[in-house]
């Protein structure tokens, strides 16, 4: 029997996390435009609201009122459904991310700020997260356009190649922490010294690179690739369907940034303040995630796009061996019980 207070707390948490995710997605579009403008000596959107802050709102309204086009010969059902598939996994996976330590208000413990505390959180996240590529592939295929189809194909190839690396690096982290529960993983890195980034520097680097590929972001955005494929899988999309793809992309970025924070940066742990109150931890979590999000934008406006064969070469010939090596070394260390970092961490 769940007490109604518990239910209310649950609902509040869900509202906060989902609402937050949607808003972050919207704000990211603005941030992307603002930062890119600044990096190019421009001002960026500044007409709607103060400093252009209401731009996402205006964009949203615009998307709603745009004509929704249906290409000739498209598979109508799939064409409509694809954006949903693309956007949905991000929303499902955010459920297992623990955003803070236990919330304690007026001496009462309300648990962590997370929707679900799954024992197999990591597996759930990987399984559902992997689905989002179906949206891209189906959208590309259903559009009945060669550009879209090529975009979809590339997305699938890329996803297969980089998901491997991603999973292998995560495996190394799991090996270290000995649990599949994300909350426990982040609990295990309470002090800055125990953050997995120190014990897994190579893993962290590989993870970050694979993260870009997984979210189809520059320099790995081959699924859209304006220079070659017009707009790739969403060439034929317009109006809200198009917006959903975008929302999906930015939400996926947010989720994977959260994941990186949990896996490598100790989640809500605050450096040098072990028993910080939960809201400070939550702030630290947001700050770390934002850093990753900024990195996404920053890299996009710095690096040129790879060639597709380079992408594949990098994935299979460099990243995969390195990830395997990393897992192997981690495995050796763990099985021999050499936990140097934990010792070092406990010193700090």
């Amino acid at each position, binding site marked *: 029997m769940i007490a109604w207070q518990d239910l209310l707390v649950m609902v509040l948490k869900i509202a906060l996390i989902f609402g937050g995710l949607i808003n972050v997605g919207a704000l990211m579009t603005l941030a992307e435009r603002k*930062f890119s*403008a*600044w*990096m*190019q*000596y*421009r*001002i960026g959107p500044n007409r709607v609201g103060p400093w252009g802050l209401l731009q996402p709102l205006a964009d949203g309204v615009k998307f709603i009122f745009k004509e929704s086009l249906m290409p000739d010969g498209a598979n109508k059902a799939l064409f409509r459904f694809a954006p949903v598939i693309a956007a949905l996994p991000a929303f499902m996976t955010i459920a297992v991310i623990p955003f803070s330590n236990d919330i304690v208000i007026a001496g009462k413990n309300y648990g962590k700020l997370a929707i679900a505390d799954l024992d197999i959180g990591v597996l759930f996240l990987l399984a559902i997260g992997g689905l989002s590529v179906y949206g891209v592939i189906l959208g590309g295929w259903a559009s009945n356009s060669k550009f879209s189809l090529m975009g979809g194909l590339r997305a699938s190839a890329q996803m297969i190649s980089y998901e491997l690396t991603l999973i292998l690096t995560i495996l190394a982290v799991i090996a270290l922490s000995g649990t599949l529960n994300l909350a426990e993983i982040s609990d295990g890195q309470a002090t800055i010294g125990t953050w997995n980034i120190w014990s897994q520097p190579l893993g962290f680097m590989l993870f970050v690179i694979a993260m870009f590929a997984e979210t189809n972001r520059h320099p790995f955005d081959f699924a859209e690739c304006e220079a070659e494929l017009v707009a790739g899988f969403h060439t034929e999309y317009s109006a809200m369907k198009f917006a959903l793809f975008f929302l999906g992309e930015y939400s996926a970025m947010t989720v994977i940034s959260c994941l990186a924070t949990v896996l490598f940066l100790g989640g809500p742990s605050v450096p040098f303040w072990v028993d910080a109150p939960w809201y400070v931890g939550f702030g630290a979590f947001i700050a770390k995630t934002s850093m990753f999000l900024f990195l996404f934008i*920053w*890299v996009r*406006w*710095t*690096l040129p796009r790879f060639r597709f064969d380079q992408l594949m070469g990098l994935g299979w010939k460099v990243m995969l061996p390195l990830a395997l090596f990393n897992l192997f070394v981690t495995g050796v260390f763990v099985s021999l019980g050499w936990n140097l970092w934990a010792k070092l961490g406990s010193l700090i």
Partner: protein
Amino acid sequence: MVIVKRKELSFAEQLYIPEILRGLSITFRKMFEPKVTRQYPEEALIKTDVTRGQPRLVVNEDNSIACVSCGLCEAACPAYAITIDGGETEREIEREPKRFDIDMLRCILCGFCEEACPKDAIYMSDELELADYSREALIYDMDKLKRPKKALQDRIDYVNRINDRWQTPSST
């Protein structure tokens, strides 16, 4: 034939990572440099002698149009923006346009019409703004194109100055 040798890359360079970091640091620094964007409607464009705005037709002091509908601008226009129908007039110069349309959506502001005109009747004004709610409204007819000669005088002087440079000594 020139054979271009690829530069041998050092290990660090092959790793790309340092170069990527260098690139990132550049873009990061650029964020804080002064911006060059011009806030257009508030900050008007700077107009100079050479500003080549939309073409306009010259109206003489006696209120007659200078154009004789010779069609040379129509023929010179690379964008097929001009359409002219001529007709007879009682004035000493027997011919004048009855219809003179410039499709401003087609016009590429190249100034060929100005250059082609044998009667100094069409000049590139400094008017640049072009916005309306329909395509039809942006096909300018004679009434919208006419400008008193005085309004175009700066441009006329400028063009004359430029043309003088090419003048070969001769008498006509």
